[in-house]
């Protein structure tokens, strides 16, 4: 559907803001380099204040970078105003024009492009069908539910066939159930339209579900660019490991290639480039281990709680407190607080930082 899929490239982008309290300048985004492939779905993920929205708004043109250059489809766009950029944004608050009906909202961008009224009519009808709002042209925006409003916002952005579609936390005003179904919907529409998309969210599960690649940001710096799979299993650092999913960090020493030692016990673990003899933290996902009466590492249960889908344990191993989630607990032995247990690790689950 898009005329041309465009890639986005950020070269050494920095944005400096003034802290309103102390009056000091600080980097909201610092020396960021990104390459977003044409047609891909990329998520900027991070806690609030990490610079993800600022980055998105710089791509849209609402903010100007203090250093570096942004390229859209190979062209530098730093000096272009938002209305001259081939981008379209879906806003967190939907930002529908409240004095227009659905048709006029969706047709707004097309009318600015001075298209033939008949063409506009059919394009609007097509795009409303794509987002599942056929025949709603004459409704006013306040007659729609939140989910429907967000669909209109999406339709309005899609219909002008932008080179890149930008999403600024589009689902955070919706309730939890709707959020899950809408994200699948957004992904489907993006693939059908074959459009490049940059998506900002602080919700890691949303990012995992929707993206080809996630860009994890923290304090203005890009921590890792990876597929959801890589980011989960091979986090680059503690921040990423902790932010994506839950993680235990267990202190260990590398004793050989792919072998670490914890409390005198040798464990198989991906060590990557870490040299033998160095100290490291091994990352253990809560579902990556199970408890048994015998096994690899001994520990003491300090907390045990039934959560439905899984049994939640905190196990003291040396001076580490390890969180374990055992799924489908109905058919498994349940340990209680004070029980002595052994941790057993699933194949290929340990990863050293």
């Amino acid at each position, binding site marked *: 559907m898009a005329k041309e899929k465009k890639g986005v490239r950020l070269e050494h982008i920095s944005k400096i803001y003034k802290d309103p309290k102390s009056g000091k300048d600080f980097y909201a985004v610092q020396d960021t380099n990104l390459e977003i492939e044409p047609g891909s779905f990329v998520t900027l993920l991070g806690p609030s204040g990490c610079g993800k929205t600022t980055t998105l708004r710089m791509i849209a043109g609402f903010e100007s970078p*203090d250093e570096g250059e942004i390229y859209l489809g190979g062209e530098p766009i730093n000096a272009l105003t938002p*209305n001259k950029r081939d981008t379209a*944004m879906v806003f967190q*608050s939907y*930002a529908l*024009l*409240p*004095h227009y009906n659905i048709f006029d909202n969706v047709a*707004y961008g097309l009318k600015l492009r001075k298209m033939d009224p008949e063409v506009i009519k059919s394009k609007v009808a097509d795009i409303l069908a794509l987002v599942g709002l056929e025949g709603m042209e004459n409704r006013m925006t306040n007659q729609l539910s939140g989910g429907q409003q967000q669909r209109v916002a999406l339709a309005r952005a899609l219909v002008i066939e932008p080179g890149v579609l930008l999403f600024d936390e589009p689902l955070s005003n919706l309730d939890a159930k709707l959020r899950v179904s809408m994200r699948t919907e957004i992904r489907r529409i993006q693939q059908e339209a074959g459009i490049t998309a940059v998506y900002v969210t602080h919700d890691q599960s949303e990012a995992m579900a929707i993206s080809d690649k996630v860009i994890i940001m923290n304090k203005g710096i890009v921590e890792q660019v990876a597929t959801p799979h890589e980011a989960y299993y091979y986090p680059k650092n503690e921040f990423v490991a902790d932010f994506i999913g839950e993680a235990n960090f267990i202190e260990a020493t590398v004793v050989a290639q792919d072998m670490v030692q914890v409390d005198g016990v040798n464990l198989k673990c991906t060590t990557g480039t870490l040299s033998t003899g160095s100290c490291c933290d091994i990352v253990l996902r809560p579902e990556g281990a199970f408890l048994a009466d015998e096994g690899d590492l001994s520990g003491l249960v300090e907390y045990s709680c039934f959560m439905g889908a899984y049994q939640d344990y905190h196990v003291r191993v040396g001076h580490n407190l390890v969180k374990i989630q055992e799924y489908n607990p109905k058919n498994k032995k349940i340990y209680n607080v004070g029980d002595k247990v052994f941790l057993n690790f699933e194949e290929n689950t340990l990863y050293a930082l």
Partner: protein
Amino acid sequence: MAKSQSASLERKKLLADPILCTTIVLLVVFLTVFILYPLAILLVDSFVSDNGITTDIFKRVMGLSNFRRAITNTLKVGFLVGIISTLIGLLFAYVEVYVKLRTRFIEGLFKLVSMLPVVSPPFVLSLSMIMLFGKAGIITRFLLKIYDNSVYGFWGIAIVQTLTFFPVCYMMLKGLLKNIDPSLEEAARDMGASRLKVFMTVTFPLILPGLGNAFLVTFIESIADFANPMIIGGSYDTLATTIYLQITGAYDKQGAAAMAVVLLGITLLMFMVQKYYLEAKSTATLSGKASRERMLITDKSVTVPLTIACSALAIFVIVMYICVPFGALFKTWGYDFHLTTKWFEQVFVRYKGLKTFKDSFVLSLISAPITALLSMIISYLVVKRKFKAKGFIEAVSMLAMAVPGTVLGIGYIRGFAGGIFGTGILQSLYGTGAILVIVFVVRSLPTGTRSGISALRQIDKSIEESAYDMGADSFRVFMTVTLPLIKDSFLSGFITSFVRSITAISAIILLVTPSYLLITVQINEFAEKGSYGIACAFATILIMITYGSVLIMNLLMKYFGTSKKVKFDE
């Protein structure tokens, strides 16, 4: 860390938008020439004489005993009026927000009181004060049989100004009280505090900055007021009237300029305190929205006295207003109460009434749309755009609020009579209707801008950004998104500016030439002469025009206002 790149990029983006750029440049020029320059010229006038920079002029002016007296007079009136207006305003606001008003009648009274200062010319109360309590006053002469009561002077001004300005305090404080979360007071009640204790320990401290704010606003209004002291002041001169007399009576333009600088200094100082200290503070303590409806006080021992006090005051104010049309219908006020139309006939036959109303009406009608549009543009730029001159535009258009009309008038005389800096540029403007229109615009701009800014702040920034993002330039965004969304504010700006213009006097009286006849100037003239019948006839028609305009505005709002079609999600 250098922010130079973003600054230069923002500049480039701005330059890519020629309509926006031109608008900004024109605005800056307009504000500089018609607000800053006239004030600057007053400074020049009062500090520069033939022998270079000097304070001689100030020394000379301060040496005038009538000027020194005018300063103390003005401050005395200002303080008294400020305090009493705030207290009465608080009483009304408290009763409206906290007390269950039993009847529609009393609700109506409250509404009327809040609307009167908007629709009435500023000096109507002075007229009725004289007619009720003066030498020939109905109450003094006929009810109380006092034949030599003098309403002129300090108490006359103070009473009239208080009655004129307290509704403004009432409206300001009502807004504040409504924002207090009832649960704060309920918590105090729950812990055992009496109603009085709750008011003294919770409500009062919370609105204290707001009270200060109301006081200062009234104080500024009072010391800038020209018309009331002119009509009812008698020999009790205030700064505004002294300055006026200095230029019209003594032809001492430099002296008047120096005096104007003193008056401006006082109002500016008060304005700064109000704007940058109290306003921020009062909103900071009361930023929260009321979570629930307040339980209204129904206790009779509280409601009855408060309601009676407010109603009595409200009825008194309304009677004073009603007095004016009657003044125009009686043969000789205070002596002969036969109904007559002779004053109205005189207005139209002898005193060019038709031309007067036409001139006032047309000039105000020209200035109203200009003001409304200009203030919406300024609010849009200030709230939604980033650019260098933004601070300047906001500051100067707000500054106009602190400039008393008399000061502006003197500034225009000094600034434009000989052209800009005496060069003859724009000299042709002087004495024309155009300069009157400009004065009207400048005088109404701050109120319009204020309402525009608060309306725009309610609108999510991303609504305009989305339009911008889809390819609309600033001009289109403003026309297709901003303006439709603040239609209400635009309409009310239009009418308010019209009403303010048609009732304005202080700046205009110094600038108007015999080729233009204005209602307010006529009223002032006849009231000065003691021809109250004619003054009342003029005033009656003026009130009818303004009241009619407000009614039309309310109708328009009802049928075309945004609030009907669109509900805003915050």
